[in-house]
Each structure stands twice: as C-alpha cells, then as structure tokens.
C-alpha cells in the first residue's frame, strides 16, 4: 500500500513538473533553443510573489494574478531584446546567453535576497489533506497544483489550436521562413511564445514555492533538470506528452524515495537516461530530436 501511495504522490508531483516543463517545451518547439535560465526564472517568480505578498498582504495563493502577467510581459521584452539578439547569432550563442542569465539571476537573488530558504506561506492549506482508505493521504495543495497543471495544458492546447496567435506560433514552429513569406513577423511570434512560456514558468515557480522551501540555487540544482527530463521523457511537440513525462518523472522520484530517501532524484534521472537510450524521441512523440 505504501507503493500505491508513492505512485499517487508521484502523479501529484508530476503535475508540478509538467507545469515546469511546458514552458521549456514551448520555447524549444518554437525557437529551437533550450532556455537554461528556465529554473532560475521560476525562482524569480517565487521571490516576486514573496514581495507581492509582503507588500499587499493578499493571500499567497492569489499572488499569481499579479506575478503571471508581470512575467509574461518580461518574457516578451526579454525575447525581443536579449534573446532575439542572441538568436541572430545562432543557437550556440543563445544557449550561452541563457546560461549566463541563469548564473546572473541566481547570484543576484543571493546577493539581494540572501541565500536563506524561503517559502510562500499559504496557511493551513499546506498541510490540509484528505484520506482515501487508511494509507493514502492526498494534500489539497498537491491536488490543486495538479488540477492547475492540467488546466494550463488544456488552455495552452486550446490556444495553440484555435486562436489566431496560436496558429501563427505553430506556423513559425513549422517553418520560420515560410511564415515570413506569408507575412508573419516571426520575432513578434517568438515574443508571444516566450511570454506564454514565462507565464507558465511563473505559475510553476509559485506552485513550487507553496509546495516546498526554495532558495536562490533551487532553479539550477533541481527545477531546470526536472523540467528538461519531463520534456524528454514525454517527447517533444506534445503537451500531453509533457504531462505524461512530468507524471512519470514524479512517480519515479516518489518510488525511488520509498526505496531510499537519497534515491529520489537519482531515480528520476536514471529513468530519464533509460528513456534517452531506449526511446530518445520520448514516449509520445514521433518527431526526431533537434
């Protein structure tokens, strides 16, 4: 029964990882670059939320109302300036620039906000739970995060398939040059895609900050790699693959933790490496790796 519980907890955790992964996946799908600052940006969002809560005294759980739009705007601006400038130089430059951003962000957080661990205080919600049978306990927060993750993925799916901007994003992802020939300013489309990705990463950062403690290094030591692993396990180009990847990663980690607490992270990474060896295109995707 503890194993069943571990799987269920893993599924819950998977929602959080999928939330982290979908922004990374979207940016990779559209711009063909991996944003190495992804995890640190989530941490920035969590710290901004801390600030918002401190100043406005709104409950932390509502901080997303402010933080997500701020982050989306930040994403658009960053894409149109720094990231576009690096993209013009090539994919390698973009990798190096996002890596540089990651280092700068992490150290700036440490410099200005100290290296101490923080958390977003959501009162009793952090411990409230309900039980199924005698062994399985599900925390409301975990369930909320999973529901939010699924809702975000559904919304993103709907946006991409049904809106004019979503259609342009898919066209640019398919063939940037052909999109230009059809009259699309791909830089603007890149900006929109990045804004959405930043919005989701902000949401993920807030969820993480409510879920557990964080500090300036959490972004690189954990979140970036988890997000990437979820993307690869699930396979590119499919948001449902991302959810599946996040859930598989979460389950692997929770089951690994049952075996030995120190094995939690390792189990997830070994699953990632196994998938990479056996099915490098991921479990749902038929596309080739870029």
């Amino acid at each position, binding site marked *: 029964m503890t194993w069943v519980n571990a799987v269920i907890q893993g599924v819950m955790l998977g929602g959080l990882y999928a939330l982290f992964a979908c922004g990374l996946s979207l940016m990779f799908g559209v711009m063909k670059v991996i944003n*190495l600052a992804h995890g640190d940006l989530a941490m920035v969002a969590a710290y901004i939320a801390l600030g918002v809560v401190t100043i406005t005294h709104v409950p932390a759980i509502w901080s997303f109302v402010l933080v997500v739009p701020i982050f989306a705007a930040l994403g658009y601006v960053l894409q149109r300036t720094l990231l576009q400038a690096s993209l013009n130089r090539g994919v390698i*430059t973009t*990798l*190096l620039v996002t890596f540089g951003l990651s*280092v700068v962000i992490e150290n700036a957080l440490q410099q200005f906000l100290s290296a101490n661990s923080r958390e977003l205080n959501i009162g009793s919600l952090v411990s409230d739970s309900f039980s199924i049978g005698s062994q399985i306990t599900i925390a409301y927060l975990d369930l909320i995060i999973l529901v939010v993750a699924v809702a975000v993925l559904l919304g993103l799916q709907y946006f991409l398939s049904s809106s004019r901007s979503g259609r342009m994003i898919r066209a640019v992802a398919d063939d940037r040059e052909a999109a230009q020939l059809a009259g699309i300013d791909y830089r603007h489309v890149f900006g929109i895609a990045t804004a959405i990705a930043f919005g989701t990463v902000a949401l993920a950062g807030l969820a993480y900050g409510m879920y557990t403690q964080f500090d300036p290094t959490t972004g690189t030591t954990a979140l*970036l790699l988890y997000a990437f692993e979820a993307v690869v396990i699930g396979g590119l180009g499919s948001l449902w693959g991302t959810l599946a990847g996040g859930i598989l990663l979460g389950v692997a980690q929770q089951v690994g933790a049952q075996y030995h607490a120190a094995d939690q992270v*390792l189990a997830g*990474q070994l699953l990632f490496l196994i998938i990479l060896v056996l099915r*490098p295109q991921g479990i749902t995707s038929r596309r080739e*790796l870029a």
Partner: protein
Amino acid sequence: MSAVGQDTQAAGGQHPRVAARGPAAGRVVTRSRRSALWAGLAAVVAIAILGYLPYLVFSDTTGLMVQFFQLLIMASMWNLLAGYAGLVSVGHQAFIGLGAYFVVLLAMHGLSPFTAIPIATAAAGVVGLPVWWLVSRLRSGYFAITMWVIASVCMLIIIQISSLGSGTGIALSGLTQSPTLLAADTYWATLAVAVLAIAGIYALLRSRLGLALTAIRDDEAGAKSIGGRVGSVQRLVFLVTALGCGAAGALYAISQQFIVPTAAFDVSFTAEMIFITIIGGIGTIEGPIIGTIVFFILQQTLSADGTWYWIVLGLVAIAVAIWAPRGIWGLVSEKFGIRLFPVGYYVWPAGEQPRRLLARSARP
C-alpha cells in the same frame, strides 16, 4: 576570424608550403608569421621561468598559480569542445569530479596522489566513452543539458558511496611531503598538465584533424555535407576534453586535499570555463589564455564578494557573446593581425612572403 583567416579557407586542405590554386592562385600560403616565432620562443622562456617559480616565491603565490592553471586547463578543454567541435556542454564538471574522486580512490589504495594523476585522467577518459555513446545523438541544447544531468547523476552516485565519504566529503590521503615541497610539487604537476594540455590542443589543431575541426567550427552542416567525418572527430575531441577535465579534477583534489561531492561536481566549474572562453575568445587557442588572465584578475579584485563576481562575469559574458562574439582575442588579433598559435594559414600575395618564413614553412 580576420580577413586573413578567411583566406585560409580557400586554401584549406592544401599543405602549408604549397601555393594554393584556384581562388588563391598567385599567392603563397604559410602557417606562421613572425609573431608566432616570437611566441614560440617566449613560451619556452615563460615555461622555464614558471618552472623555476617555486624557488623564487612563497607557496601562497604558487597556490594562486595552481588555481590559475587549473582554470586554464578546463577553459582550454571547453573551448576545444565548443569552439571547434561545436558541442556546448554544461556538464563537464562530471569529469572534473570523477578525476578528483579517482585520485582519492587510488590514494586510499596506497598510490601516491601524484602518481595517481595519469591513472585518474585515463579513468575519466574511459568514463567518457559510454557518456559519448549516450549524448552523441543529441544536438545543441539537448546535448548541453543532458551532460548536466550526467554530472548530477555522477554526483548522486558518489554521494551514495559511504567509503568515499558520502555527501560530507573525504580527505585525500597519501600526501606525506612537507607543506613547502607539497606546494611546489602541486605547482609543478599543474604547470606540467597545463603545458601538456595546451601543446596537445595545438598539435591536434595543426594535424589533419585540425582542418576538419576548423571546418566544423565554421559550418557544421557544411562539413558534414562535404563528407567530413564529423562524428568521429567530435568523439575524439569529446574524449580529449574528458581526459583534460579529468586531469584538472585530479589536480583539484590534490590542491584542495579535501573534496565534497557538491563542490567537485559544481556547475560553477563549467560556468567558469564558459565565461573564460567567451570573454577571451571562443574558437582560438589564445582566447582561453587571455580569458583566464582577465578572469583571474577579476577574481582577485571581486572575490571578496563572490556573488558580485559572478554577476559581473555573467553580464560581461552575455554582452561579449552577443556583441563581440570573437572575444578579447578576436578584437586584438583582428586589430594587429597577430596569432600566437597559428593553426590556420596565412595567404600572402606572391613574392611578398618573407624569405625566412618560406624556409621555415618548407619543413614538413
């Protein structure tokens, strides 16, 4: 590359002493200019002086130099990998940590840590083989971040091994010299590895493989399309960098004498390699050398506040990568037309080539 450098492509594939046909007809192609001769001479003198240094200065100075040369080795390796083979890794701390722990392991079994350096280096290279098998199918961002995962896996595995000190770290045994002698030995070993690493890279880039590497640096797809053995060349470079970083890690263990997994496998190592290479000038041998000097000066002036040091470095590296992608050395060599480690070719209008260099370049 300077305008001169671009001409070398026209003559690519030709032997240095052969006057190029085709687009470069009527010109003479050489590898070296006077600046390189002087650089060679200066290098010999510099190495001799550096080798004599422990007799002249206190061990705190040589200690700094040890750090300097470790950085230089790592940055040169990363530059070879990214600047020439087109492979951006953010996980080469894996080989540094492994090199360090191999030395600890060998010393635990009675080997002198200095004797253990070449063995640990080779062992890191051996680990590089399966790692390459795993990551060789991946490109750009996927390659970069999967290397990071691999470094993390290596660290997590070592944390599980209690005989290696688990997560709390382990002291390196077997260093029985007096502190003064130990400092000198560490210095000499590090200097030797650094000289070997740079000379090795220089030799590699001047070999026939160097041409393939330069082709990949300039245009990977193009190199593939003309039948370049891109895959095998990249594998060789990857393994060389695994060896180099393994050696740097072995030296790190000896200079630290106590290692902790989170420090030995810290991504900061790779961040340093990347920033040094970008700022100094990616895709040149001189770049990492210049970069390490700049980096070291910055470190000595800003390190009182570690986070500021990283913020400044990161911002400078971002700016350089976007607005001056050839780095400091690129600007210098463009302005003055010098190259200390000539791995390309110079193209001279016929008749203008200095006689002395003709004689020199006529040697095989």
